[in-house]
């Protein structure tokens, strides 16, 4: 591919990535949002985080089947307990990494 072809491809990808990120914010930040929308959006973060995590813990990405007892899941349990106990983001990240690393060596 030539420079211009790359620029067109990545420019196009950039545009369709940027618009969904920008338009809701640009629109909603200058309007009075109804209370029901604020309440509903308040539940979106917990829902998104769960939806990002759960398939990676309970399924196998290659075959897209259920997979119980994956290392990702086994490490998630002590990591979750650690974060409930300490409420430390940095500590949780490091504990998760350490356990995952040790688990991979076994």
């Amino acid at each position: 591919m030539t420079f211009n072809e790359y620029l067109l491809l990545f420019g196009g990808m950039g545009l369709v990535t940027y618009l969904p990120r920008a338009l809701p914010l640009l629109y909603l930040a200058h309007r009075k949002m109804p209370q029901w929308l604020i309440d509903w959006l308040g539940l979106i973060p917990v829902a998104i985080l769960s939806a990002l995590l759960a398939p990676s813990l309970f399924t196998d990405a290659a075959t897209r089947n259920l997979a119980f007892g994956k290392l990702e899941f086994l490490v998630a349990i002590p990591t979750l307990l650690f974060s409930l106990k300490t409420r430390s983001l940095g500590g949780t990240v490091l504990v998760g990494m350490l356990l995952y690393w040790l688990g991979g060596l076994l």
Partner: protein
Amino acid sequence: MTIDQKNLLRQGIAAAWPICLGYFPIGLALGVLAQKAGLPWWTVAMMSVLVFAGSAQFICVAMVASEASATSIILTTFVVNLRHVLMSSALAVYLQGVSRRFLALYSYGITDESFAVNLTHFREGGWDRYRALIVNHLANSVWIMATVCGALVGQFVPQGALGLDYALTGMFICLLVFQLQGRIYILTGLLSALISVVWYLLVPGDSYIVGASVCAATIGYLLKRRQRSSR
């Protein structure tokens, strides 16, 4: 720099480092794949600057390798990144009345990770749009650097070193814990986990993130409203 600016930067770094740690191995991996697919290192830099979206970039590299058309790559990117509509909307609650110029710049850096970190800080208080912007751009800089590094020297880095692959999972687990501020949040989280797994198993592609989030938040919202009106 004034003391205020130093504080701003320090707090931004303190909030962003888990993201950066997590982006590094993923960015390296992307660079290595891109190089194997025959993309020169400068195109990797160009893509990371213009697109800045991890999963879409992986898909792009795979599609370039299989000689897909630019149109189909761009369409796929659009679908994969539509989920940011939800994140952008949720952030609007905390960025009311902020100038459009600032928001236009801020929007560039909205990713799954920066969204989760910034929203958590906004909710806990003591956070403002400048600190949030620093988090976005630190994450962006590390991403660009890591992907270019991967394209240049990535094949010499051992796979799975130091459990780095788990950094983002660990971060998401902790941010999820921060979000659990009452029964309705726990219920919504459990619902979303269940729906996302079933959706992921049944429907190809990435629609499970948006699908499960919207379903779970809507059910959670309706339950909360019923509970309120029955009192």
